């Protein structure tokens, strides 16, 4: 599949006049990238275990999307959610401690990489059943609608999830009930090793959403501005009413599906071609061409990201383990909290 696919030209980014935003987007993509590179290293060192799904290459999707949402909105994500959690404001320390399985983790070490949660930031996971988060998002949106709260719910999922019944049931419900759900499909072309064309009879994902009378548009998921603009428009449209919106972000993961994946199902040349469009270096090149960034400023942002990562690792290393005596806690709500 060619790295370039047809996209709608994005409308002007709603926050394009926010002069600090471009550097924020770049800084945040760097934070995700450095965090995940460190995670890969720590995985090799046996500090992080279990399934670890890296997002490297896809950072523009999380950065553009999370910056288009309001602090009070709900986010439901998948197991490839480190970036989304981080940009929703979950402290990197808490994320890293969770990866280590420490009590200071954002899920008390009960969740690990795939189950990052943060109630205060309305971050509802961290869902590791493909498609499983979609009905939850519909329900959250239903609750907000019935409670007359102006929030919207963004649900992030991969194109693989669109083959699951959960996608169809959820988007139908959201459209039928006109709920404020933003369906964010991060189409990285592969569900583990299964290429989109080998799993779907209809590979035009927007057409699938449109079949449910849901407004839909595609955007270049390697271009953080395009993502931010497209998602920004979609968010505004959902907030204005008229029900859900579907956004397809056309992206690519540079790494294997998970740390267990030997990545035998795709050409090295294909990966290299996509890497040419890597969201961090293309965007920093753009910013430099626009005179908004120089190499020294880039290095400062990168160093800050790296320092944040180093501090998070130190925090996680030093954090205590939860006592095994607490094994059964949080299966049910304790009496005191009822």
């Amino acid at each position, binding site marked *: 599949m060619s790295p370039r696919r047809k996209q709608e030209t994005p409308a002007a980014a709603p926050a394009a006049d926010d002069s600090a935003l471009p550097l924020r987007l770049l800084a945040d993509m760097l934070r995700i990238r450095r965090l995940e590179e460190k995670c890969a290293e720590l995985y090799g060192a046996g500090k992080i275990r279990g399934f670890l799904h890296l997002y490297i290459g896809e950072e523009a999707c999380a950065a553009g999307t999370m910056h288009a949402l309001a602090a009070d909105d*709900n986010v*439901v994500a998948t197991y490839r959610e480190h970036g989304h959690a981080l940009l929703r404001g979950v402290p990197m320390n808490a994320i890293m401690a969770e990866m280590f399985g420490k009590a200071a*983790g*954002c*899920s*008390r*070490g*009960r*969740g690990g990489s795939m*189950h990052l*949660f*943060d*109630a205060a930031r309305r971050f*509802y*996971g*961290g*869902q590791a*059943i493909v498609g*499983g988060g*979609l*009905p*939850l*998002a*519909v*329900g*959250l*949106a*239903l*609750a*907000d609608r*019935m*409670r007359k709260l102006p929030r919207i719910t963004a649900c992030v999922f991969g194109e693989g999830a669109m083959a699951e*019944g*959960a996608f169809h*049931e*959820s988007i*139908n*419900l959201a459209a*039928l009930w006109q709920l404020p759900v933003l369906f964010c499909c991060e189409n990285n072309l592969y569900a583990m090793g299964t290429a989109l064309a080998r799993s779907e009879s209809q590979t035009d994902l927007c057409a699938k959403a449109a079949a449910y009378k849901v407004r839909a548009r595609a955007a270049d998921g390697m271009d953080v501005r395009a993502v931010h603009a497209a998602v920004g428009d979609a968010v505004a449209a959902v907030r204005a009413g008229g029900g859900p919106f579907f956004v397809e972000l056309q992206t690519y993961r540079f790494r294997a599906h998970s740390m267990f994946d030997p990545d035998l199902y795709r050409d090295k040349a294909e990966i290299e071609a996509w890497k040419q469009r890597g969201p961090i270096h293309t965007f920093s090149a753009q910013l430099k061409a626009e005179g908004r960034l120089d190499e020294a400023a880039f290095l400062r942002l990168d160093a800050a990201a790296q320092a944040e990562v180093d501090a998070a690792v130190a925090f996680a290393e030093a954090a205590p383990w939860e006592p095994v005596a607490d094994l059964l*806690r*949080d*299966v*049910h*709500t304790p009496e005191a*909290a*009822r």
Partner: protein
Amino acid sequence: MKTSYREALRLALREALIADPRVFLMGEDVGRYGGTYAVSKGLLDEFGPERIRDTPLSELGFVGAGVGAALGGLRPIVEVMTVNFSLLALDQIVNSAALLRHMSGGQFSVPLVLRMATGAGRQLAAQHSHSLENWYAHIPGIRVLAPATIADARGMLAPALADPDPVVIFEHAQLYNLEGELPASPDGWACDIAHAAVRREGSQATLITYGGCLPKALQAAEQLAADGIEVEVLDLRVLRPLDTDAIAASLAKTHRAVVVDEGWKSGSLAAEVVARIVERCFYDLDAPPLRVCSAEVPIPYAKHMEAAALPQPERIAAAVREVLGV
């Protein structure tokens, strides 16, 4: 007041909808149709389509939406037509509702109430006659209830809604038409959702059962009493967590147990109860505990075959005689 099990459920639903604006009922045909088993009949007119919410045929979707709505601050009551169809929603029940609290390190609870019909006896054939309560009772993170009496049908919903965690309520399809006296005052039907209940006192053996088998066990106990055999009938009521203390207390008195369960014997809830009896009451036992369960066959359509597959009072009484050696 003379009432039916169905009406008792409806009274409880009405009361819940009136008491708390966060409560709403959602499911296939709960609104216009009035509920597959007519439990929600009339509620649409009274509460409107926002709160008596008809859903498409999307068990996974709307059960999951119920989980999300619970996370979002509402108190959804989701009705699944029967346990058979709940299998399409198992992912959301088992992988989301039951786990979210633990996986999030205690940050989220899911105050969802899931109601579903269960059981056989209406000649609906295999795909509409399952009794899979034990599947749900296996899962940590949910509470599983089986109201077997009109009072419990009236009384269990309120504490289920008050529970901050997910509660699954099984209504046996054979019980909906059950009629009886419902005490006027809540003292007569209000209940906790933690304890089993002795439905008949006896000294010679304990019949342990729940849900749709309770009337059958009581009938068997009547037959046996006519022959001078006094059995105690213990209604489990709460299938998870099981009230092991109540089981042990009864066995300390009777020393003999027959467990009656409409599930298939292999891997049944009855198997769990017997295991607990053996672990906890072994030295109280005067005879090996017995089980009366459904035959290991998909429930047949033909009436006589269906009846043969299910626990019946005669088989229950025979099992009691067997543990008594008479």
